[in-house]
């Protein structure tokens, strides 16, 4: 089980879906959600002063309405500006190959395609999580 997860997504309904799916699949006990990349960046900055608040994994939407930058830029900042070393990836309804490549380039470890039936993908991700954490699992797209 993943200790704690941060979800960055502008869609309220998806927060509910993700929360219920994580609970039903026993993925995590602690799920936090934010609705913009700016808010998420503030969280990342706060973890630098208090690492106990840092989650084990971050799921970021690709296009986050109301944010000054998108999910790929957020991953870029987390990995290169703050050097956080957290398991991080995209969760988006898009599966545009070009965007996937960009995300991989900035250090995303996974790409989960959002759809009506997200549970099987999350279950598969749960199995791979330890590999992501230890760095043995390569970039993976969950379609």
């Amino acid at each position, binding site marked *: 089980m993943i200790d704690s997860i941060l979800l960055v997504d502008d869609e309220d*309904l998806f927060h*509910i879906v993700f929360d*219920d799916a994580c609970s039903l699949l*026993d993925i995590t*006990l602690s799920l936090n959600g934010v609705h913009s990349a700016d808010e998420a960046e503030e969280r990342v900055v706060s973890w630098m002063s208090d690492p106990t608040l840092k989650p084990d994994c971050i799921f970021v939407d690709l296009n986050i309405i109301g944010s000054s930058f998108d999910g790929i830029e957020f991953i870029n900042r987390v990995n290169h500006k703050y050097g956080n070393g957290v398991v991080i990836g995209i969760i988006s309804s898009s599966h545009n190959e070009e965007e996937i490549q960009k995300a991989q380039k900035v250090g995303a470890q996974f790409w989960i395609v959002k759809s009506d039936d997200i549970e099987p993908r999350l279950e598969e991700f749960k199995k791979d999580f330890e590999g992501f954490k230890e760095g043995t699992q390569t970039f993976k797209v969950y379609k």
Partner: protein
Amino acid sequence: MKIKLCPEARAELQTLGKSKNIWIEGSVVKLLDDCDGEFSEYIKSAIENDTSKRKKRLEITKQVQDQNKELQKKADENDSLMVELKEALRVAEEAKETALSDLDVMQRKSQFQLIGSIVKYALWVIVGTGIITTALYTFAITSNSSETTLIGNTWSNLFGILLTNSFSIIGTIMGVKYANKEDGDN
């Protein structure tokens, strides 16, 4: 990390669950210690209750998500139709303007044609009358007619009337032309 509840709290929770169907919900249930099996039945029931509620909520949320997507799709279609409708309306307005302009041009053209015909026939009548009376007067002079003076007066009066009418016609034509020019400028 497990949370161990005191016997009194466990008993209260068990009674509450059985009598009023009120259960602890959420992730915290998974952290409760079963106290060597004594509290396991309650935890199991609470988890079942939580799972059932979450399943229902997940199903409904997904339905709402689908409906939202459908609504968004319809809204996009409506927007697209509105754009098409506005464009069609603009084209229709343009066509109407063109038709009205063409109609106006045609009306003016027919008015000018009518005026032209009237002027032409009026001038023919004036010139014809002038020629006939002049010829009659000339004939009276050359044939030493006793009616020369009478015909002369008549010719003079008639010519005056014809000239006045000619100027009146010319004035009317100029007025019509001027009025049409003013309309066109406006």
